[in-house]
């Protein structure tokens, strides 16, 4: 999908509509629209509203029956102890997620370049086989993967997660970059070749400088999916606390049937969600681009 189209999604020109004075019917529709939008927004925000207000009621002050009630005064007591518990897993998660995202992006960019511009016989078919990898349920490869994990002695290090996310991120990253590069006109490549540049030189001098938006999209997408991943984390690290990452450490706090203090639970859930929420808030436009690239057509 071309970046222009995405920009059109993001910045609909409303100047034309706004200037006109609306007649009665249209006014009614507008009010109705806003009303519906607000209702939907409330529904969408409800779960995180619960999370946020219950994280500022201290440790013991959180009860399920008062789930919706905002606190009378802000109490950040839970944040200290929870942060103590979560800071190492969060740091470790940032460590592996950023590495795996960068590596994924590089691989995706090279692959995307080839599939978009330097095709070979059967490359479309190969590309399709890559795409299939995007759709597989991870359960289908989980048992062999854990056995591979044991055989290759990767199980003792966080790099097993870097490895897993890079490998299984290849399809989506390739797709995003390939769609992105498809928007670069071939004339550019042709002209460079006429001037004597080879594949690698063209990549370095033309493609890469233009790739920054693509990189941002892939980095955000991979960051979010690796940060939020639970399945790979729990299978491949086995819950070992030396390898605890954000989701598994969170599950430790929220999954406990021995839970006493929901304040900790809510605070931990919120803290774990903050990085991806921040990425989303500041780089949301690129996040959206990543989503739309994943749709193949349309």
């Amino acid at each position, binding site marked *: 999908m071309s970046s222009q189209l995405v920009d059109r999604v993001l910045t609909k020109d409303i100047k034309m509509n706004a200037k006109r004075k609306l007649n009665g019917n249209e006014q009614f529709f507008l009010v109705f629209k806003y009303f519906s939008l607000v209702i939907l927004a409330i529904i969408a925000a409800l779960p995180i509203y619960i999370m946020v207000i219950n994280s500022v009621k201290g440790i013991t002050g959180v009860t399920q029956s008062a789930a919706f009630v905002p606190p009378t005064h802000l109490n950040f007591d839970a944040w200290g102890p929870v942060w103590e518990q979560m800071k190492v897993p969060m740091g470790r998660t940032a460590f592996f997620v950023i590495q795996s995202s960068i590596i994924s992006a590089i691989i995706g960019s090279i692959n995307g370049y080839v599939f978009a511009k330097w095709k070979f016989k059967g490359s479309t078919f190969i590309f399709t086989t890559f795409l299939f990898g995007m759709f597989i349920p991870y359960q289908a490869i989980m048992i062999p993967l854990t056995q591979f994990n*044991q055989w290759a002695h990767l199980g003792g290090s966080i790099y097993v997660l870097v490895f897993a996310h890079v490998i299984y991120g290849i399809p989506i990253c390739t797709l995003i970059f390939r769609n992105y590069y498809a928007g670069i006109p071939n004339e550019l490549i042709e002209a460079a070749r006429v001037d004597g540049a080879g594949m690698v030189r063209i990549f370095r001098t033309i493609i890469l400088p233009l790739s920054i938006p693509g990189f941002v999209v892939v980095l955000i997408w991979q960051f979010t999916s690796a940060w939020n991943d639970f399945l790979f984390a729990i299978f491949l690290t086995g819950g070992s606390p030396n390898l605890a990452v954000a989701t598994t450490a969170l599950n430790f706090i929220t999954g406990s049937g021995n839970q006493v203090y929901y304040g900790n639970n809510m605070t931990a859930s919120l803290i774990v969600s903050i990085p991806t929420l921040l990425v989303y808030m500041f780089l949301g436009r690129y996040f959206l681009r990543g989503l739309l690239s994943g749709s193949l057509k349309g």
Partner: protein
Amino acid sequence: MLKKSKLAIAAVVAVALVGATVPASNAATDKKLEIFTWWASGGEALGLKGMTDAFTKANPNTAFVNASVAGAAGTNAKGVLVSRMKAGNPPDTFQAHAGAELTSYIKAGQVEDLTFLYKQQGWDKIFPKDLVKTLTSNGKIYSVPVNIHRANVLWWNPATATKAGVTAAPATMEEFIADLKKAKDAGIDGIALAGNGDWAIAHLLDVVLLGTLGADKYNGLWKGTTSWTGPEVKKAVSNFTTILSYGNSSKALDWPDAGKLVTGGKALFFIMGDWASSQWQADGLKLGTDYTWAVAPNSVDKKPIYMWLSDSFTLPKGAKNRDAGIAWLKVCGSLAGQDAFNPAKGSIAVRTDSDATKYDSYLQAAMKEWKTDKLVGSTVHGVNWNNAAMASYNTVVGKFYTGGAKDAAGLIKGLAAIQKNGK
């Protein structure tokens, strides 16, 4: 690109650099011990801490790593343990219930024979022989028991009982059901139910089976002498259905939340193992005033029965820090260790020379009864059925409960099938 985005990217890079200072894995050159349990919080974690403190005192040079996986009764932990064993990364010791559950690991060849340790530490003279039998396979002993919990305990809040017009603890199933009705008439839920994970409902079924069949017939269920499809089980399931109908309306509570219904006056009774007591005490409640206890109702046996379960620690084959693991086991079986662990955990020590003064009034009573009462094993906590059977047990009971407790025939059929398939 917007300045805001550039800033954001810079922030991401900064985080990466900070994160890079976090070591990717523990590059410990000193001695280390990694233990694996499901005691992640509350009274259970406090108990564990008592033991680990004792360990650290005896082994100051060993770094201690608590690889606990949350989820009551080990519902998540067991899965993670399997995954770790398969990945060739076993912990140095892990928690397993005495009885059939332990046999799962023994049969899979995953734990070491500890008979040598028993002889060395003299445990064969100090631990109750019947208990050690449940840890033995082919004459070899495979784990070190740290505690004994009682599963068939009835808890209630004295204030709530007064409100409902209940003056004495019900001794039989019939009295129990009558009391439940009194609670309902007073506008309170009769029994607190913890539906999340299904195991607590299965726990209740265990106690109702015992209370309806009596100890001998109950034990016969696992030996094959009592028929699952017979009239006794049918009666028990009928009692079970009735009791469930007096339960709270929230169907997926965690057990501490269900316990809170009782101490908070919203439900009258709670049938749960004695770890409930340590949880309430960790919450600051007082035994005797805020809550009190009795042996769970039993229509057949005149004398009280002790439905027991026991947590034990093992030595996995291929543990990376085998010596540290053995050192841990020594602490587990020691007097100091057990008397530090159990009061906080809410259980009684396995050692027969345990110091009773360290335990509260409930536990002291339990210690006395352990020596005198007839014993039956808890099914949902590993004594009678192995891991696979217990998983099916939880599923079958959960299906019955969420189905509105209507399909009694299906429940019985499912239970009979588990007994038939179990190894």
